[in-house]
């Protein structure tokens, strides 16, 4: 049993154990702590000299029958999946720390913690799988737990409707994705589900996909993955779902699970379908501007913190898409770094939004105010979340966004290409997000203390630890992006090496 198999199995086994009667919160905490520990161990033992190849590889062949693509339960990490694994492990632990105690869940604690572990474990499995089938399947593991979590433990009158919306959107998005992936597998000979082998086949001019097939497949993947990442105009499930979801689910979903779509585009679509990517480039640029500008303005209009955080998380996906659209090493490295930064900062934001909702009973700006007087520690930490999300220097988001913009603007020539215009438009998004984030900060924490709010104590240690964990990671990766870049850059370069060869 390899290290990666342990990491993948740990949350799933913990979920099973809780289902069979183990104490919920302790088991979940221990297993997610274990996941983080083993992930750090993987990072420490990761050999940076081996550029762009999967490490810690383990593979169990499940079948190898003629006429059916070969399938194996295979795991491996390269730099990109490694940093996403770290992100997932951090956010999973934080989410479980933030989750309410068992006795406040009225006999449904088991369901709650099982669902959290399945959502987190599914994301981790998807990031670590080197087999296309399991990459897809692990992501789907989160579908029903999310449905149940929002429907049962969610907030607001229409939480059931919201649960339906997210489930149907993501379900249909995954089906479209599935058709795209199947088309690619069949087009590449239909012999294997192994991603590395498929990419090698795609690189080889003799066995690669024709330009028209690539266009079709990339289109399907863009819609499929795009729905999962809430690419404009397939985004409308995201904000209501995050607003209605319990805080830990919003943290995991917006912070980690949503990154799966981007990961898939980088890992599968870019190396396998370069011609398709080129064909869809302009469309993608328009759509990502929709994410950044249209949703930026939508975010400006929000009057509740949870909705604002939800739409802002949709909006920030635009930057990551910009990095992917840039299609060069610096852009894609920036996109990956930004995925981590965004995941941490949005999880932080949702974690604190949950705390405020519990304490004050509302998240509407008009009913809140002056909370910094009552909860100074919360005020300080919330400031960190705001600054990180706005992309201030010193946070991982800044490092990522800068790299994305450089990547998108890169090039020797001086003429104005589409992507450069897009970049200029996208830069305005930074201003927009600064406006709404700072405004939210002001309305909630400054001014006179709103009537009837501000009771109870400030964040205690148990509540501070998960937030400090996330902030610490954000600052570390922000001040020394090299911590992550040393893993990301070789992997992205490897992506391109294999693309060219």
């Amino acid at each position: 049993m390899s290290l990666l198999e342990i990491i993948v199995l740990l949350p799933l086994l913990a979920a099973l154990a809780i289902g069979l009667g183990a104490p919920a919160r302790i088991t979940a905490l221990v297993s997610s702590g274990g996941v983080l520990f083993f992930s750090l161990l993987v990072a420490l033992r990761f050999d940076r000299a081996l550029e762009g190849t999967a490490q810690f590889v383990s593979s169990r062949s499940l079948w190898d029958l003629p006429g059916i693509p070969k399938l194996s339960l295979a795991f491996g990490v390269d730099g990109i999946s490694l940093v996403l694994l770290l992100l997932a492990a951090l956010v999973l632990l934080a989410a479980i720390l933030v989750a309410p105690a068992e006795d406040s869940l009225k006999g449904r604690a088991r369901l709650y913690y099982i669902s959290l572990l399945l959502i987190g474990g599914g994301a981790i499995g998807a990031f670590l799988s080197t087999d296309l089938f399991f990459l897809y399947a692990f992501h789907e593991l989160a579908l029903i737990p999310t449905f149940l979590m929002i429907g049962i433990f969610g907030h607001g009158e229409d939480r059931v409707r919201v649960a339906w919306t997210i489930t149907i959107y993501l379900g249909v998005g995954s089906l479209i994705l599935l058709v795209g992936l199947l088309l690619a597998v069949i087009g590449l000979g239909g012999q294997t589900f192994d991603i590395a082998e498929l990419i090698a086949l795609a690189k080889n001019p003799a066995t690669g996909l024709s330009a028209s097939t690539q266009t079709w497949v990339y289109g399907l993947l863009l819609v499929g993955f795009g729905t999962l990442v809430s690419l404009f105009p397939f985004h409308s499930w995201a904000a209501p779902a995050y607003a209605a979801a319990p805080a830990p689910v919003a943290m995991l979903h917006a912070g980690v699970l949503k990154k799966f779509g981007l990961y898939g585009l980088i890992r599968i679509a870019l190396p396998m379908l370069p011609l398709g990517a080129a064909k869809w480039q302009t469309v993608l640029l328009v759509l990502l501007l929709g994410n950044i500008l249209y949703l930026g303005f939508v975010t400006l209009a929000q009057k509740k913190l949870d909705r604002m955080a939800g739409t802002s998380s949709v909006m920030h996906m635009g930057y990551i898409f910009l990095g992917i659209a840039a299609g060069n090493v610096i852009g894609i490295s920036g996109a990956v770094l930004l995925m981590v930064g965004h995941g941490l900062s949005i999880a932080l934001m949702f974690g604190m939004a949950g705390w405020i909702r519990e304490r004050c009973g509302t998240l509407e700006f008009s009913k809140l105010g002056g909370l910094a007087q009552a909860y100074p520690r919360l005020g300080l930490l919330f400031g960190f979340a705001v600054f990180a999300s706005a992309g201030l220097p010193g946070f991982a988001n800044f490092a990522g966004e800068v790299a994305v913009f450089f990547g998108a603007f890169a090039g020797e020539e001086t003429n104005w290409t589409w992507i450069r215009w897009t970049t200029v438009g996208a830069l305005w998004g930074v201003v927009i997000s600064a406006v709404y984030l700072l405004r939210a900060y002001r309305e909630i924490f400054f001014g006179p203390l709103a009537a009837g709010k501000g009771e109870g104590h400030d964040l205690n240690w148990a509540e501070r630890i998960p937030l400090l964990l996330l902030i610490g990671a954000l600052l570390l990766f922000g001040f020394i992006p090299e911590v992550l870049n040393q893993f990301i850059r070789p992997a992205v370069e490897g992506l391109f090496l294999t693309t060219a060869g």
Partner: protein
Amino acid sequence: MPVYFLEIIVVALGLLMLMVDAFAPVTDKRAIAWIGMLGLVITFALLFYVKWPESTEGVFWKFYTSEDSLSLFFKGIALLTTLVVLIMAVEFTPVVVEQTAAAAKGAHPQAGLGEFFALPMFACAGLMWMASANHLVSIFVALETVTITFYVMVAYLRRNVGSLEAGVKYLILGALSTGFLVYGFAWLYGTTGSMELPAISAALASPEVNRVAALFAFGLILVALAFKVGAAPFHLWIPDVYQGAPTPITAFLSVGSKAAGFLVLLRLVAPYLASAPLVGKVSLVLAVLAGLSLLFGNLAALPQRNFKRLLAYSSIAHAGFLLMALASSPLMEANSAALSPAKVIAFYLGAYLLMTLLAFLVITILRTQIPSEDLDAYKGLAKRAPFLAFALLVAMASLAGIPLTAGFFGKLFVFKIALEQHQWALLVLGLIGAGAGFYYYLKIAASMFLETPDGKSAPVATTAIVISPLARVAIVVLIVLIFAAGVNPALILGLL
């Protein structure tokens, strides 16, 4: 031991159960079901030890396929289905007793229960025979053995109007479809001059075949078999019969009957698909049938509020997916190595068996404690019976085709061969259907997990729901198999 002993054993077992019911002084007639279950388990084990004789001469073998793992697989499906149906029937005993026995003086308080356990055995023998039938006569006789048994079983609850209505509907439409089948067989015989499938296959493949007559025969046969498997537009009986029939019998119908129907369809359609002059028209007709079933089954399932009715429409939808695989058959010679439609259909049916039986098993258990099968009656079930709710959730997830469950691979393989054969229209309909499936299957999960009983449609009872040890074991086994086949489908594919 020759293969056909298996059917004889099962028939003998059924007769034994009838004799025990009639002559042995049994106080609790559920013991009869135990005899049947034990016998079925032994027969299932024998499946792995059968021999195929070297020569196929002799009276008996003329009606029987030669060595063929597919037919063994379908015999296994029939046996397993019957086994689970008997487990359900035991759970269902209180309902059967309440709605059948005319408590005459001195009569056994469970009078009429013994046959309820014995009849499935005869249907099972028919299904197993059908799996190997290789001759138009034996196909017909096997099919009728099954159908006639079902006429009785569907209408078994004679105090229940719904069950009687279902019985009459099934009888009339079933008899009609049998007429089509015989007429089709007559035309097929007239066209090809043979009743044996290999000879028919050869005759149809020759370029001099009378195309009009052959296609006419095909049309008639297809009408009859589409009725059996419940494909649109011959599905009209399905919702009413599924809803009205006793739940174990509904499960039997939806799994056993459908599986056997598809195997016969495979065997009868294969000669047409292998025939160059006919394949184009035949696969077009199949594609139309598949498209209609996909569209109708999935969309009509959306508004259903009765669980059994919902599963009835879902069974039409699954027939659509299976027909989609059949319609995606290329000319048959290309099939030998790759993932042939026959294998896809067999896998799909294997997965379908697991998840459908699991769902019906849970419904049966609940039916004895919640006197309704409406979705609203299941509100808040997750709190009252978390184990059953979880089992039902797994069944629904698998039916909806969520990865890591067996149902996903069924759909995956169907989509794969449809893609390979460029059946774009069917693919789009399949996607719409699968998307709709997410909604109507999860609707049950929503009812169980997200809602609280309101006291009107759902009882606010808090008593735990009793599950017998046997049923519990069966549920756990089915759940484990669903997940195991969902991670490693070679478990099922390896049997083929």
